[in-house]
């Protein structure tokens, strides 16, 4: 399972998303590789990913990708990320 966490600059929000996504995957017992990427790199990386995690604002910039795009509203809310990721990986 390959997951790409996307933000505009690749240093802030995507890193937070990556940390929380890794926590959730570990809790679910799912083997996955989570990568943080900025929006420029992400369009490419998303082509080979299974899941893209990002915010509502950036989702439209990613465009059409084969990956499932999951929008996270509150990057600090592990419950939200758990719920949305669980639905996607099962």
């Amino acid at each position: 399972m390959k997951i790409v966490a996307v933000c505009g600059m690749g240093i802030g929000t995507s890193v937070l998303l990556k940390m929380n996504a890794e926590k959730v995957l570990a809790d679910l017992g799912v083997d996955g590789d989570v990568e943080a990427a900025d929006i420029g790199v992400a369009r490419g990386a998303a082509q080979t990913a299974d899941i893209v995690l990002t915010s509502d604002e950036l989702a439209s910039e990613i465009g059409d990708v084969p990956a499932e795009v999951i929008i996270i509203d509150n990057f600090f809310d592990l419950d939200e990320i758990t719920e949305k990721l669980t639905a996607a990986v099962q």
Partner: protein
Amino acid sequence: MAINLAEELSSITIKAAAADWREAIRLAGNGLVEAGSTTGEYTDQMISAVEEHGPYIVIAPGIALAHARPSEAVLKGGLSWVSLDAPVSFGHSKNDPVTLVIGLAAVDHTAHIDVLKAVAGVLSNKEARAELEAAETADEVRSILKRINN
């Protein structure tokens, strides 16, 4: 090694007045500049990031993580904290209005990750956050952060 946010914060501004989101980001940028972490150019870059990509930096209800790419405008890693006197709208669909702006300056893509982890750890704790939002002085913010860390 656990990071103590109270020590990592290069600048704390409490109950600041900002008329709009640009001013709110500018306050966070000023904190980084005064701490010797960035040049004024970095502040402009943080504002441009939102102009270009939208208000995605509002990462949780009420919290904006202002930042731009590592660049020559970053002299050393830094973190600034600005709590706003009155909430400011960033135009975010779910997480508006913003009452806390964290300014983040990073020298590369990895050096600041432990600091971000500490920020996430503190701000995802609802009680801690309520206490921090109510703080009236910078010293109070630091002492709350120190206590949470312990």
